[in-house]
Structures are given as C-alpha cells and as structure tokens.
C-alpha cells in the first residue's frame, strides 16, 4: 500500500479545483481501508475466526462423549488447535509446505487439527495432548498460512505472487473459492404473509447447541405458536401461561395496551379461557399432551409436564437464554413477536425477505464451521458407537479410545466439500450490482460492493453539516501518522449496516450536505465492484453494457500473476505483450490491475471498411499483428501418474522405440528422451507420445494358490498429444503426489497470433470477432502517418449507447499526446471538455475526428474519422479451438448415427427446425439423404406375411423365405422396433409393391 500511496500523489486538476468545503483527497481513505479490510479480507477474517475461535466453541459444545455401556467411561476434549500447513514426508515425519508446491504436486494445502483430551482407560484417567483428528484445508493468506506477514521478496522465494489476494483454498492441486452465500438472518423476527395472505412471524434460532424454527400464525383472529416439536398449533396465551405469566393483564401489557392491539389480542385470551387454563401447571399439562414423543434412551423418565417445560425452555426460541426456568426474557421476546404481527396486520407492513437488512451473508469461515461441526459430531458419535460396542466385550487389553480415532473422516469430509459442489475457481469473488452470478441454474444478483465489510460500509460522519474528516487528517494519513483504525476510534468514520443506512441521511458529495445530513460517502465509485470498476466512464454507458462487460472482463487474456510462469495449470491464456490502459480508474489502481494488465491500447478508427465488418466484426491491421498486437500464449498440461499396484507390480516408462531399419526412434517417439519422457523445447505434433508409459496387464493380487508369476506382462498406455495444431514443450515436472505415486506433469505451449474469427472486446461490453486482416498499406492514415490497429464499424454505437467508449477514446488520445494517463473513474474522471482542450492544444480536432486519407486510393475520405486509442481485450474464445468440420467419421455404437460434438469429431446435426424447413420446401430426396443415407442407413429383411424383421432372407417367425423382401431404413428405426418388441409391443411392417 505504501507503493499505492505514492502513485496517488498526482491528482488531476479537476479534483484539486473542487468546491471549497471539499476534502479533496478523502478517497485516500480507501487504500487505508483496503489495507485493513481488503477485497477478500472478509473471507480471510471469517476463516481466521473459524480456526481460532469458532472451532473451540464447537468443541466446547460437543466436549464430552459418554458411553451407555460404561457409565464410568468418558472422553473429554480439553482444547483444539489448527496447526500450520505441512506435508508428510515419510511415516511421522512432516515438513512445512508452500501453497505453490501443493499446486504443482496436486496436493491439498492443509494443516493438522489436533486436540488435547482427557479420557478413562479402565480405571485410569489419562490426558493426551496434541492428538491429530484430521486435516483442515487452509485458506491462503489466513492466519495459519505460511504466506502471512511475508514480504514481497519472501513471496517470490515461495513462488507466490504478492498481488494475489488469497482467500481461496488449494484442494488436490486445484484452486477453489467458497462463494458467499446469502441466508435469511438468524435470530431475527421476520414478519411475512403466507400464500393465503395471512400474516405470521417466524424466527430461526441458532446457537451452538441447538437450532430451531419457531412460527407464529394467525387463525380466525387467534394467535398460535407452531413448532415442529408440537403435534399441533398451540394457542399463544397457553404458551405465555406455561412460561409462568399467568395473569392476562400482564400478557396484554407486554404486548401493548393500544386500543387496537388489545382488541386483536382479545380472541386469543378468550380461547385460553375456553380451554379452562389459568395456571402454569394447567398450561404445561395441556402442552405436555401435545409434545411429539421423542425416543429417548436411558436417562430418568420425565413426566409430560416436565417435558413441556423442557420444551419451552430449550427448544422454542432457543436463542433466548432461560436460566433455571426463568422465562422472563423469552416471554418478552414472544410478546414482541405477537406485537409485530398485530402491527403488521393493519398496515400490511411485512418484511421483505430479499432486503439485505434481513439477510446475512455467509462467508467461507461460517460455511466451513457448519461443515466441521457436522463432521465433528459424526466423529464423536462414531467414537461413542465404538465404545458402546467394544467396552462390553471382555478383553485382555483395556479399551483405549485413542486407537480408534481415525483421521480420514474429517479430512475427506472437508476436502470433498471444498473440491466439489457449490464452489468454483475465481480470482475476484466480490461482486457488485452490475455483476450477475449464475448459480445452480438460477440467476442471483449479488450485491457485494467493492468497499464493504460484509454489508457494513464505512462513511464519514457529518456533524452540524460539517464532515468530520478534514484535510489535515488525510494529510496525516498519507504521512503515515494515522491509520484507518484511528479514524474509526476518533469518530471520524464509522461503519453503517444496511438497516442503519435506512435511518441515516447520507450525502453523496460535499455540496449535497444540508442540516439533516448525518454521513458523507467516502467516494461514490466504491459502489461498484471489481469488474465494473475496470470500466472507464461507466456512468456514461447504458447499464446492460456494463453488466455484459463484467461477464466479459473475466474472459480477457492477460497476466495471471507474477508466478504465472511457474504454474502448471490445465489451461492458461497469457498475452505476449500486455499493456496498462491509457484510461484508468481509481479502482484499477486499487486492485493493481496495472501490474497485472489484460489488454492492449489499440489505435481505433471508427469507420466502415470493406464490408467484412458487419455485425460488430473488426478489421485488423496486418502489420500490427506482425508486430505483436493480440499475440497470445496458450498453456495446457498433460499429466500422468505411475502407480504401484497391490500385487507389487508397477507402471513403467520405457525409452523410445527404435525403427528396425534406421535405428532411429519411430515418428511417434521422436520427441522422447532416453528416459521415455518428452524433452523440453521440442515441438509435438498430433498423436505423438509425451510419456511412453506401460502398465502391467495384471494389477490385482493373484488368487491364493495360483502360481506366482515370473516376469509381469506389460501393456503400452502412452500419454499422447491430441490437438490439431502443434505445441511446444515448455517444461516437464517429475514429482510425487500425496498417494506416493510418481507424478509427471508436462506443460505445453502454443503461441497464437490473431486470425479471422478471434474474439476481441473493448471495456464497454462491445465484443466483436475479427472479420478481415488488412495489410497496412490499405489502411487509412491520418496526416501524421498513423494508421489504425483496429477499424470498428460505427453501427456498434447507436443501439448500444456506450458513450463511455467514445469518451475513453478522447481521453486516451489526449493522454497519448500529453504523455500521461487519464482517469475514467465512475462518477468522476477527467472531464470531456478538459480532455478536448488538450486535443486542440496539440493541433487535433476538438471532437477527436481526424482528416484521414484512404490507403487504397490515396484520396482523402469524405468523412472525418473518430480516431484514437481504446483499450482492447483479447477474449479466450479463438477459432482454432472451435473450428470443426466432418465428412466421414466415427459413429455411435448403439444407434450407428454420427457422433456428437467437436471433441469426438462429430457430425453437424440437421435438427427438427432444419428438417421442418426441408419439409416445407418439399425437398424430400434431400431429407432422405440427410436423415438416412448420410446418417444410419441399414438394410433389413422384412417378412411381408408377418410384418416382422427377418434375418438374411429368412423369416424366423414364418419359418419361410417366401415373402421376405429387403428394405433400407434408418438403423435407429430398426432399433426402435426391436426395443418395442422387448417391451411386448409388436410393430409390424405392412409391405406393398411400389407400383400397386
């Protein structure tokens, strides 16, 4: 961040010339804020809380295991810790591990979970410390990660990128992020309408011990409590009485003494009266009969009344504590619920489930703690089961529970949960309202802004229409005398939560402050998330365009991280010459986009050219491509493991096979080294072998008694390269994975220059494919001799209304002339007027439109051309990966129809709609050809007598060959007939002569 501070020191003149009362550099609070609560800091903090605090609470809540078999036996957890990530080198020898090593070796970056326990063995009481019970995947940059507190230099020693924000896990070598999940707030009264329009209230209570849901419903004007431990809805008044509030007056006073409140509660009291329940005892007896019986083993038998009291104390509204059956607090809470429902009935003021104030966002730590709690309970119940089983049996050795504590259950549970299901890889998980996340098919709009600490945002406090933060404070901040925490402690800045925001007057800018204002926004652009923050001048764009860009920005090629060349990813796209954008935003600086750029500043001419630019297609300059524009590197990997099998055989890698005549390696083995693994730097062609692996034919333990095999037989299972274009071998890694198998990873590389059909996009949701590549001499040129890298069709603008892109071009052009970067920060940035004045100063047209000469005719163009630099991204969809054609090829086994999909060299389907066209047109012979002859034509023998399929001229049903004729039908049709027959349906074909 110190680095950032330096970069921010140059302020644009607009900001310096802001209104009088402005704290001009109040945005400097942001880097300070991010230092404390970074982008993924919330995730990391929540994980830290989990492994340091929450896990201990979970342990406390489940600390004792007892056995039904032996009342004397117990196991008690004293403490629980999560250690530092390590890897087992050999038996019982561990060594700290770095995240990068885990990535390379396909291991899980995890740390042991150890416990201190106290238990009995026989009559002894034993204390054991630091007993491992499983392994916990560790979030990168969390408190237990090896990366915390390291300097950039140390990061590079660990092969880690210092700009990587962390906040993800490495599971089996894959980077996984746990996405934020939103859930309705716990322990909060939510008043809502059911489907019939009746108002009710519900509370989901959650504590470490118990979780339960309590509903309050209204039936015929009477209030009832619904809970899944009660077999039917209980009148609320009886509940009150059961909790010891016997006086009706007291109940009403707790709920409210307003006329209409009393009136609407009266029927409930009446019902209680009718049920003849006046005392606590009567109420408990009544409730006791309604309690759903729970099977309880052992323990003293309880009376129904005791059960009812227990239920009221511990199951209903569990989060309100009840000590020694003092129900006071719970009564008041219940009364509030009733009151909320009554008040809501009148004005229909129900709560909004989707309102963020009624929601909680669950972060990685919380989700993992739920998962761990589950696994830990399962672990304990398993131990209890084992104890119950083993203790009764008399044995020589005494029962020692430690021998039965298995680590794999918790380890696998955690690993599997993170590596599968709802989680996915992504570098910037926090989102904003421009950003839509598709999650499990349904689209969810996530609302996590860029500057936000889980639904709490920092604001500057305003007192008596004066912001508390003064220039002096900011100065102190940039000098380093003051930190963000100091601002909080001194009451200059405070966090507001979504519900608090409703009761505040928040001014966007200083000039909007009036006498009622309570807070001031730090900077309006913080409303946007990371992806939207990269867009210059987003406030000039039509909003869907910004949303598209948010999705598209993730597909842009560029730089992954400083450690990109050390990684062996399954798929990695890099740009050969990435550039920082000419027009940047504050967000770009804050998230270090300039250090990891993903695009190039292209000189764009907005004009029509050649007709190969329709439908958003772009025309590219061939010379620009020759010089490296849009050139990218595609990295893929090939993997192979060498295993040892149960019968003591193992996989082998064989050297290259030599041609008998020439004594040179055969073509397929051309690139292999003597060790049978391809050598770095070689060029691989399709079907050439990368690793010449062979595998024993028998891998199972031979049955007892069978003869011991002498020399095992081997079978070739080479790892060969598949791909229509050649690749180069970048590097070969030989290591071992967690299962102790040999692991060979090969990194393959391709360099691609843009070609027709490759996809490009500006930062304004304006994507387009390359439609034509034109030699430089054909390109139009301006008076200074500049010719464009990209020609873009002007039809892209009117319907998209991406005015931001137009302004980006102007600002970029002025920046190039001035030798500086302009800002396109949302709700701010360099003003168009100032930028255009710069253009004038350098002798360019005010509107950015240049006089341009055609490169073809040499005459000037009749129109002035909008001409200047725009930041363009190359997207990772390239024709090379998509192009596909087939004449003949493989067919599916079952239907004998052509296979599907490019990867299987499949055919292109003539679907229903295409078929309909041909039917409508009457092209019946073409239909026959497409649907049968070119697909799955099949000769069948059909018996004209019985109408069934025969075989080689013989009808098996009629036992004759008299009426058998040969037909050509689709194989799928024949298959259908046979399938129908197998279901006891006989399809019979009726044959008649063609000319009859």
């Amino acid at each position: 961040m110190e680095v950032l501070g330096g970069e921010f020191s140059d302020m644009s003149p607009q900001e310096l010339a802001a209104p009088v009362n402005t704290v001009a550099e109040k945005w400097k609070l942001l880097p300070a804020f991010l230092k404390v609560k970074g982008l993924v800091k919330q995730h990391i903090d929540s994980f830290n809380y989990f492994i340091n605090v929450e896990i201990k609470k979970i342990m406390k809540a489940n600390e004792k295991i007892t056995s039904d078999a032996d009342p004397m036996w117990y196991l008690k957890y004293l403490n629980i810790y999560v250690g530092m990530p390590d890897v087992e080198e050999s038996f019982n020898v561990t060594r700290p591990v770095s995240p990068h090593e885990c990535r390379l070796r396909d291991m899980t970056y995890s740390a042991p979970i150890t416990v201190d326990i106290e238990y009995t063995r026989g009559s002894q009481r034993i204390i054991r410390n630091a007993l491992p019970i499983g392994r916990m995947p560790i979030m990168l940059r969390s408190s237990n990660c090896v990366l915390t507190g390291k300097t950039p230099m140390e990061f590079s020693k660990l092969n880690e990128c210092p700009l990587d924000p962390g906040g993800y896990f490495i599971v089996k070598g894959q980077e996984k992020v746990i996405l934020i999940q939103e859930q309705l707030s716990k322990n909060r009264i939510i008043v809502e309408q059911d489907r019939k329009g009746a108002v009710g209230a519900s509370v989901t209570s959650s504590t470490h011990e118990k979780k339960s849901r309590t509903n309050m419903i209204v039936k015929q004007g009477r209030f009832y409590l619904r809970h899944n431990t009660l077999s039917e809805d209980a009148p609320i008044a009886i509940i009150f009485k059961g909790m010891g509030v016997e006086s009706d007056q007291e109940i009403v006073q707790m709920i409210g003494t307003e006329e209409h409140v009393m009136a609407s509660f009266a029927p409930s009291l009446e019902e209680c009266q009718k049920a003849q329940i006046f005392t606590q005892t009567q109420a408990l007896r009544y409730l006791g009969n309604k309690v759903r019986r729970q099977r309880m083993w052992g323990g003293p038998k309880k009376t129904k009344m005791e059960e009812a009291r227990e239920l009221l104390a511990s199951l209903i509204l569990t989060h309100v504590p009840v000590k020694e059956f003092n129900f006071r607090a719970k009564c008041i809470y219940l009364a509030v619920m009733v009151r909320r429902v009554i008040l809501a009935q009148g004005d229909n003021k129900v709560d909004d489930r989707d309102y963020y104030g009624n929601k909680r966002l669950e972060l990685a730590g919380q989700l993992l703690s739920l998962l761990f709690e589950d696994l830990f309970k399962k672990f304990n119940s398993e131990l209890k089961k084992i104890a119950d089983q083993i203790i009764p049996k008399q044995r020589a050795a005494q029962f020692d529970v430690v021998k039965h504590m298995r680590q794999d259950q918790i380890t696998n549970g955690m690993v599997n949960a993170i590596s599968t299901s709802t989680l996915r890889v992504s570098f910037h998980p926090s989102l904003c309202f421009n950003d839509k996340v598709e999650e499990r098919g349904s689209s969810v709009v996530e609302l996590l802004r860029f500057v936000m600490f889980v639904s709490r945002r920092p604001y500057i406090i305003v007192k008596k229409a004066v912001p508390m933060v003064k220039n002096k404070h900011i100065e102190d901040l940039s000098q380093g005398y003051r930190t963000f925490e100091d601002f909080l402690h001194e009451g200059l800045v405070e966090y507001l939560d979504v519900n608090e925001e409703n009761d505040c007057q928040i001014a966007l800018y200083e000039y909007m402050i009036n006498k009622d204002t309570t807070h001031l926004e730090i900077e309006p652009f913080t409303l946007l998330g990371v992806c939207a923050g990269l867009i210059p001048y987003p406030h000039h764009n039509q909003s869907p365009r910004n949303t598209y860009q948010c999705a598209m920005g993730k597909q842009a090629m560029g730089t992954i991280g400083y450690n990109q060349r050390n990684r062996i990813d399954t798929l990695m796209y890099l740009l050969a010459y990435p550039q920082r954008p000419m027009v940047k935003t504050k967000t770009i600086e804050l998230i270090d986009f300039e250090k990891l750029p993903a695009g190039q500043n292209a000189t764009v001419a907005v004009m029509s050219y050649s007709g190969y630019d329709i439908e958003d297609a772009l025309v590219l300059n061939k010379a620009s491509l020759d010089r490296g524009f849009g050139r990218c590197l595609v990295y893929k990997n090939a993997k192979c493991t060498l295993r040892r099998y149960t019968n003591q055989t193992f996989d082998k890698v064989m050297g290259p096979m030599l041609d008998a005549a020439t004594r040179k390696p055969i073509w397929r083995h051309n690139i292999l080294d003597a060790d049978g693994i391809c050598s770095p730097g070689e060029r691989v062609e399709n079907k050439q072998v990368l690793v010449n692996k062979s595998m024993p034919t028998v891998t199972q333990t031979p049955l007892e008694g069978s003869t011991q095999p002498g020399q095992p037989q081997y079978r070739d299972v080479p790892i060969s390269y598949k791909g229509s274009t050649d690749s180069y071998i970048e590097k070969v890694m030989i290591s071992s994975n967690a299962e102790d198998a040999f692991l060979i990873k090969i990194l393959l590389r391709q360099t691609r220059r843009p070609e027709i059909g490759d996809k490009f996009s500006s930062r304004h949701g304006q994507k387009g494919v390359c439609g034509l590549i034109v030699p430089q001499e054909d390109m139009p040129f301006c008076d200074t001799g500049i010719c464009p890298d990209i020609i873009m069709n002007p039809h892209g603008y009117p319907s998209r209304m991406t005015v931001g892109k137009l302004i980006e071009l102007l600002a970029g052009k002025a920046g190039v002339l001035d030798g500086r970067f302009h800002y396109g920060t949302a709700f701010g940035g360099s003003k168009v007027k100032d930028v255009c004045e710069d253009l004038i100063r350098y002798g360019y047209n005010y509107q950015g439109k240049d006089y341009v000469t055609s490169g073809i005719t040499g005459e000037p163009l009749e129109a002035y051309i909008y001409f200047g630099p725009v930041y363009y991204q190359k997207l990772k969809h390239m024709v090379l990966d998509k192009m596909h054609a087939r004449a003949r090829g493989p067919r599916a086994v079952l239907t004998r129809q052509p296979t599907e999909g490019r990867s299987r060299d499949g055919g292109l389907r003539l679907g229903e709609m295409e078929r309909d066209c041909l039917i409508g047109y009457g092209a019946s012979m073409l239909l026959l050809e497409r649907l049968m002859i070119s697909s799955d034509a099949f000769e069948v023998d059909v018996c004209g007598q019985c109408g069934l399929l025969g075989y080689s001229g013989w009808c098996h049903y009629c036992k004759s060959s008299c009426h058998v004729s040969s037909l050509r039908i689709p194989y799928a049709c024949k298959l259908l007939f046979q399938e129908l027959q197998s279901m006891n349906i006989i399809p019979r074909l009726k044959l008649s002569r063609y000319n009859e």
Partner: protein
Amino acid sequence: MAGEGEKKAVLEMVQADGADEGCVTFVLHDEDHTLGNSLRYMIMKNVDVEFCGYTITHPSESKINFRIQTRGGVPATEPLRRGLNELNDVCQHVLNTFQAKVNKFKEGQEKPME
C-alpha cells in the same frame, strides 16, 4: 517458354462470349491497389477509353481483375500498353527529378559546412 506450364501466370485476358476485343478483363496476378489504382488513373486519362476499373477478387486472392472498355473498336490491349508505358515514363521522370533534387540538396548542405 519451356517452363511456361509450371510458371505461374502473370497476365490473363478474359473476354465475354461475342464481345469484341475492346471489352476485356485483364487478370493481373500478384498485384493489388498499388499498380491497379495508378494504372487505372493513367488509362482513364486516355480519350479512347470508355471505361476502366479494377477490383480485388477476394481478400485471400492476390490478383486483380482489370477491366477496360474502349471506344471505336480500339483493342483493349492498346490503352493497357499505353497506360503501362506512360506510367513507366512518369516514374522515370519522378525518379530523375527526385535524384537531381536530392543531389542538389546534399550539395547545399555540404556548402554551408565548409
């Protein structure tokens, strides 16, 4: 002319059926706007030419179709030949002038130095 068959064609003449030799499309191989446009200008300057134009057949082909229609039954090869000759002469003149001016400029530069 032995290797004619193997050698790539440089110039082809395409004539519609029944058209006279005043309406010809010349196919100039391995050429583009550079020669096409300058030659078109020179030929357009010819009074005998009724129409002259050219087109690049397809961006992936390196040839141009050069169409000449003449007045009064003049064979189309005539203006083509003349155009090429005149273009050549223009270039020669430009080259000579340029060379002379460069020499003069260099002399002028050397003198003040002395």
